[in-house]
């Protein structure tokens, strides 16, 4: 049997499987306790880490946590593993991989070449031996650059998702929130709306509203209305202006099934979106959201700890060369991540694992009001993830999402992060901000006072029956 053991303080510890070992080595979090997988006490947790440090990386290739026959994510991971890319670390243990990742030998070029050789389980395992600062140090070295109408992930840049949600998808309300975000320099990663319903008509109306604004003001960005992938496929067939195809994904076949998705469905949507050729500077057409706890919530975690199963979702994502991937880190609630400390740790783990596996990782740095967290936790997380080189963050008006009833980062928070770390927007978007007089001489966003800006015409978009959207539709057809 594949048991793992270690001795700590004269006491011998035994872990019956790799999955049990990984779970016991995870930092304390409420979700693993809820699942009955967490270490029983602090000593057992450290004992698990000692044992994990000695595990050869090749064990992850020969001892899958979820059987190959039972799960298409396991099959995806093992079937696409690249032995040549793995070669430089093939003889290492998990503990040795940690030290190598932290060393100067692992630079941006080396890490990019390594990505196809690493499995999600290897990334999750090594993250469990790392401190928060280690997770920042290594993730900061990794560069993943993607593009559609703007380029995401370049050094010294931080992009933002502008999220103008409205509880009834009212176009006038969405347009008002959209204007607010653009005037604060947000929206270069995507202008993305969570619709209140998944009805194709409602989604299409919002897509046309966004497409109209992007077209009318020549904004170098992309839109996304975050509906189910089947809705996007349907809308693309009917000629709706879909830039990015969105889907929530998870790390097991059963959890994906609970979202109503299969790899086959994602393949179909990916091909359809590529065929539209709506990008101008790149062809990354997918947008995925993930988050720790979704597999447990769906009763589909197979005894694998919350963070490891999250990393497996990144294997699904990287199959489709996405423009954007973000973990909605604190969204589900305190039964999975109890407080600001647990949310911060999970955010750093997710960002590290995603980047290491070659993904353009961003974050929805957020919490619900029944978690023990506040706006100071948002500031702490933003700062650490900015230093860690996050590709993008999600921003809402005042940090308060009135549709999803949770708290996230605000447009102001993004301005703060760009200011203190000297980060700039995506280059195409930055040039656009300059062209409309919103870029100040120091590279920040100019503060408007006294006068209205030409962009305020957006505010009439929702009140005049989406004329902007229809006009653009005709232009595209012509």
């Amino acid at each position, binding site marked *: 049997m594949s048991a793992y053991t270690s001795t700590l303080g004269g006491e011998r510890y035994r872990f019956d499987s790799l999955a049990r070992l990984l779970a016991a080595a995870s930092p304390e979090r*409420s979700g693993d*306790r*809820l699942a009955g997988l967490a270490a029983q006490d602090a000593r057992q947790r450290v004992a698990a880490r000692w044992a994990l440090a000695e595990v050869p990386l090749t064990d992850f290739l020969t001892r899958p946590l979820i059987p190959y026959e039972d799960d298409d994510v396991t099959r995806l991971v093992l079937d696409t593993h690249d032995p040549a890319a793995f070669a430089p670390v093939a003889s290492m243990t998990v503990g040795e991989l940690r030290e190598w990742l932290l060393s100067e030998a692992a630079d941006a070029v080396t890490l990019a070449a390594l990505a196809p050789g690493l499995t999600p389980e290897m990334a999750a395992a090594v993250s469990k031996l790392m401190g928060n600062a280690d997770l920042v140090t290594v993730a900061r070295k990794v560069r993943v650059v993607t593009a559609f109408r703007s380029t995401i992930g370049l050094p010294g840049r931080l992009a933002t998702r502008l999220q*103008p*949600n*409205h*509880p009834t998808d*009212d176009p*006038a*309300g*969405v*347009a*008002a*929130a959209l*204007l*607010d975000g653009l005037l604060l320099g947000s929206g270069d990663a995507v202008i993305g709306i969570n619709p*209140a*319903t998944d009805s194709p008509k409602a989604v299409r109306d919002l897509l046309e509203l966004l497409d109209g604004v992007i077209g009318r003001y020549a904004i170098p960005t992309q839109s996304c209305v975050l509906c189910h992938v089947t809705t996007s496929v349907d809308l693309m067939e009917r000629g709706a202006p879909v830039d990015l195809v969105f889907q929530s994904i998870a790390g097991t076949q059963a959890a994906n099934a609970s979202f109503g998705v299969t790899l086959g469905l994602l393949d179909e949507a990916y091909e359809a979106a590529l065929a539209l050729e709506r990008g101008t500077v790149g062809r990354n057409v997918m947008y995925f959201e993930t988050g720790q706890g979704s597999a447990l*919530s769906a009763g589909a975690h197979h005894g694998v700890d919350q963070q490891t199963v999250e990393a497996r979702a990144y294997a699904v994502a990287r199959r489709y060369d996405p423009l954007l991937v973000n973990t909605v880190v604190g969204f*589900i*609630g*305190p*039964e999975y991540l*109890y407080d600001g400390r647990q949310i911060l740790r999970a955010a750093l783990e997710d960002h590290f694992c995603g980047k290491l596996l070659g993904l353009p990782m961003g974050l929805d740095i957020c919490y*619900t*009001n*029944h978690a023990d967290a*506040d*706006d100071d936790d948002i500031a702490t997380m933003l700062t650490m993830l900015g230093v860690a080189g996050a590709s993008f963050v999600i921003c*809402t*008006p*005042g*940090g*308060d*999402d*009135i549709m*999803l*009833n*949770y*708290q996230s980062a*605000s447009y*102001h928070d993004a*301005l*703060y992060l*760009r*200011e203190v770390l000297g980060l700039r927007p995506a280059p195409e978007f930055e040039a656009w901000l300059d062209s409309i007089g919103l870029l100040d001489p120091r590279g*920040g966003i100019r*503060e*408007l*006072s*006294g*006068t*209205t800006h030409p962009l*305020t015409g957006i*505010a009439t978009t*929702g009140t005049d029956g989406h004329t902007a959207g229809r006009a653009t539709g005709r232009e595209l057809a012509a």
Partner: protein
Amino acid sequence: MTISQAARSQTARSQTADSQAPDGQGELWASLRLRTQARIGLGRAGSALPTRHRLELQAAHAAARDAVHSPFDPDAVAARLTGTSVVRVRSAAPDRLTYLQRPDLGRRLNPVDRAHLPTGEWDVVFVVADGLSSQAVHEHAAAMIRATTARLPSGTRVAPVVLAEQARVALGDDIAHTMAATAVVLLVGERPGMSAADSLGAYLTHRPVPGVTTDADRNCLSNIRPPLGLDYETAAGKLVALLAGARELGRSGVALKDESGDEAVVDRRP
């Protein structure tokens, strides 16, 4: 005045101040804020929020936090249900901290309290569950029960109202099953957002069986919260129609549609 009332009136004051400001920005945002409750046009202090808006956000967050953590007061609800017999129970979650981390315990009855529940040939039992906002329950639960029972057909056998502490939605399954009631209507404090800390949800389940019944077997009315959300009379009308439909169909859930009219019934709870 509660904190949330203070935050609301503060917001109202800000909007007035903005609309009276001489610059075009203030007027623009005052008019745009009529279209959305989103916190738009807040202005800036450098890169950060102006002091007033920072404090308003903190007040709204405090109201939401207080709603989650303020203790449930079953006596206050019982006092508003004069003439109705009530039973008090607790879930298997001993305290708030455990409740928030262990949803499984919030779905099970405390064994001591289970033994005290009466049984009878009841058509419906109303359960008042604190959920994530006891404030919502204190403000709206008794009025919802009165409005609903007043509309039930004569002859409907209504069980004593169960007031449940540290309770999640599925605790209603355990309660109804133990009491042998045909249907349960569970009124629960919803997860508080910063714009709404006092929102009540109503979940109807026909013949629930603990551990077998799933969320797909329930019908939900969300955002009961007059005057800003759904009002009691409308919600009660829908509930009574759903109860009748469930009795006729022999089950509740996705197969049972709310056909009482107007707006769609949306459940956005996780």
